[in-house]
């Protein structure tokens, strides 16, 4: 899962991106309105965390402009907690609204809910034959036993499981599993897929040659 954090305060931006990376997300960051809008419209993010007050143009303005082209889930994170501000944010196209100071766990839960909703799911666990993917705990279990996965392997499994039954292209996987700073060598994905197959069984991920990967 790849997220974009748009926040002008350097300390908070750093704290958010680090915290989210530790939660197995690929995270990009932007410091002002124009940069945030450029990144958000360029790449496919699974969710965007958007601050209200930004230099350049503010979060509400950014939302209005972004919604002309993208439907990426957006969680607004701002110090303005007045009801009109919330209404303005939600009406401009925000999917959720959280005021500062927030609880980090709550932010994570809301992000999970946002991503789940946008991919059509409704619970935080996905079961594929004998394999259970717990999105909240970021764990994969096989017959009740936790399977040790690296963060990127987990991201791969989670993304494919959330898009279960669909063929996900390599480009899309690259977009959603790696952040802008990561070196995305073209065979890196194959390495991760083969590692996951070793851990969870060869038939867990099927390859559609020329199209991409899929969890049936």
């Amino acid at each position, binding site marked *: 899962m790849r997220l974009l954090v748009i926040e*002008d*305060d*350097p*300390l*908070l931006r*750093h*704290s*958010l991106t*680090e*915290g989210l990376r*530790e939660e197995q997300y690929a995270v990009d960051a932007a410091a*002002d309105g124009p940069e945030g809008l450029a990144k958000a419209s360029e790449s496919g993010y699974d969710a965007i965390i958007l601050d209200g*007050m*930004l*230099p350049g143009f*503010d979060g509400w303005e950014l939302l209005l402009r972004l919604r002309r082209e993208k439907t990426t889930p957006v969680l607004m994170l701002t*110090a*303005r907690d007045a009801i009109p501000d919330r209404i303005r944010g939600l009406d401009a196209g925000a999917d959720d609204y959280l*005021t*500062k*100071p*927030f*609880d*980090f*766990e709550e932010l994570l839960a809301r992000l999970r809910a946002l991503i789940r909703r946008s991919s059509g799911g409704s619970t935080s666990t996905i079961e594929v034959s004998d394999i259970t993917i717990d999105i909240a705990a970021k764990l994969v279990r096989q017959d009740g036993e936790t399977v040790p996965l690296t963060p990127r392997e987990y991201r791969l499994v989670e993304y494919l499981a959330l898009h279960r039954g669909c063929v996900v292209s390599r480009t899309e996987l690259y977009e959603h599993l790696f952040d802008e700073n990561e070196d995305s060598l073209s065979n890196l994905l194959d390495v991760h897929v083969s590692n996951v197959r070793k851990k969870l069984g060869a038939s867990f991920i099927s390859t559609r040659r020329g199209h991409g990967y899929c969890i049936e």
Partner: protein
Amino acid sequence: MMGRLFQSVRWTMLLWYALILLALITGVCMLAYRLASNDRTAQLDREIRSFQGSFFRTLFTVHPLPNKDDRASTEDLRERLRDPGDLASASPELHQLFTSGFYIAFWDTDGTPLYTSPNAPADLKRPKPSKDTQYVDRGKLREILRYDPEGLSSLAGHDVGAERGELIRFGVWLGLGGGALWLIGLGGGWWLAGRSLKPIDDIGRTASRIAAGNLNERIEIANTDNELGRLGQVLNDTFDRLSDAIERQKRFTADASHELRTPVTIILSETQRALKREREPEQYREILGSCRTAAERMRSLVESLLVLAKQDLPTSNGTRLTCDLAEVTAGVADLLQPLADEHATKIVRELAPAPVHGDPHSLAMVVQNLVSNALVHPPAGGTVRIRTIAQPDSVCLEVADSGPGISAEHLPRLFDRFYRADSARGQVNGHAGLGLAIVKSVVESHGGKIEVDSSPQGGTCFRVTLPLEGAVPPPWLQFPGQNSVWGGWRQGNGEHWLLNTWLPYWRSLQGTGRTAYLDRFPPPDDDWREWIDHLKTRTAGQA
């Protein structure tokens, strides 16, 4: 209940009104009664006199005088009174008078009765000797008594019982009429008092609604020229100011809490992240560093808020001393030199001595805010020019940078609390947008003003003007207090200074062209008199 009744303005007004009206009506009624009574008595007296005249005419008609032109003597009268003849039948008019109750009696000089009319009451007495004619009320009788020491005394009277009764009836009617008038007046007064107090009630009700929190409501004023209209106007003005103050307070509190949210968020987010799993010491250090930066930002914000809150208090003006603004500015510029180096900015000082009466700490804060803004905001590599200028009636501080200027849209709100021209919150330097608000607040509490000029070519220039009126004036020489040494001083340019300083420090400045920074110091070890003498000789020519 009664107590509350008498506290009511309406009832009090009515009570006074009733008393005054009662006194007035009683007065008028009594006057009317008195006048009517006097008039009636005077008429009666006239009637009695005319009866007397009639009696005498008849007396002399029955027994005429021998010579018609002679004056009747007392003897003539006495004769005729002894034998009056049938007077009643001689004159029908007199007969009529006798029957309607008029009576008359005469006594001789020695007191023997000469004549008594048949209808006279039995208890008639000879009048006592008196020079004047007497009018006497005796029971229901009204009598006129005349006494002539050489001749006869007479008494003529009439039964006035009927007239008295009439007068009493008139009095009763008058009383009833007055009472009715009083009651009608009371009713009118009650109505009038209620009518004139109604606007006050309205004002009271509106005011209590406003006090209950409905700050947008105002008293409706029908007529602005009368007393109540003016009262309403005054109250409305007060409410306007009050609601402004509350609005400002609300906005300030909202802004302050808003500004505190970001650092609190950082601390919460970082600590939650840190506690989630075991980490390397290096990571803990990094997280603690972030927390510390956020906490420092909060501290500086809280300090700024405290400064502002203090400046907002009308009483706290700090310690007011006469100090040199140039001195204060130089001190601050020294402190900020490292910041200037960091931004590769040159500080140019043009500091002329500028005595001012104020709180040196607050003034230093003003300079510090202005200079650090000028250092931080424009791009690196510029110049910051600091000038102090002494003018005849004021002192001026200018801080000018060579940056790209502030765009015109921001200028009007530049001194607002929490206003930031770049709208980017949480800059690396942690400015909360309170610096210029503090500057303005301090300058205004010193009775001065602050202006800003900005253009893309000429950079931004802040100009603080402080009045000189507070500066300590010229007792040109004063002697030491308990802890410090005071001295009056007259500058070459005609300005008067008061020095309050420590002797060795003052001495060390002799000949340097600088003036002592005015502050309190411990008493000098050596004899201050020497210094005073020195000061005397130095100032002798100038004072």
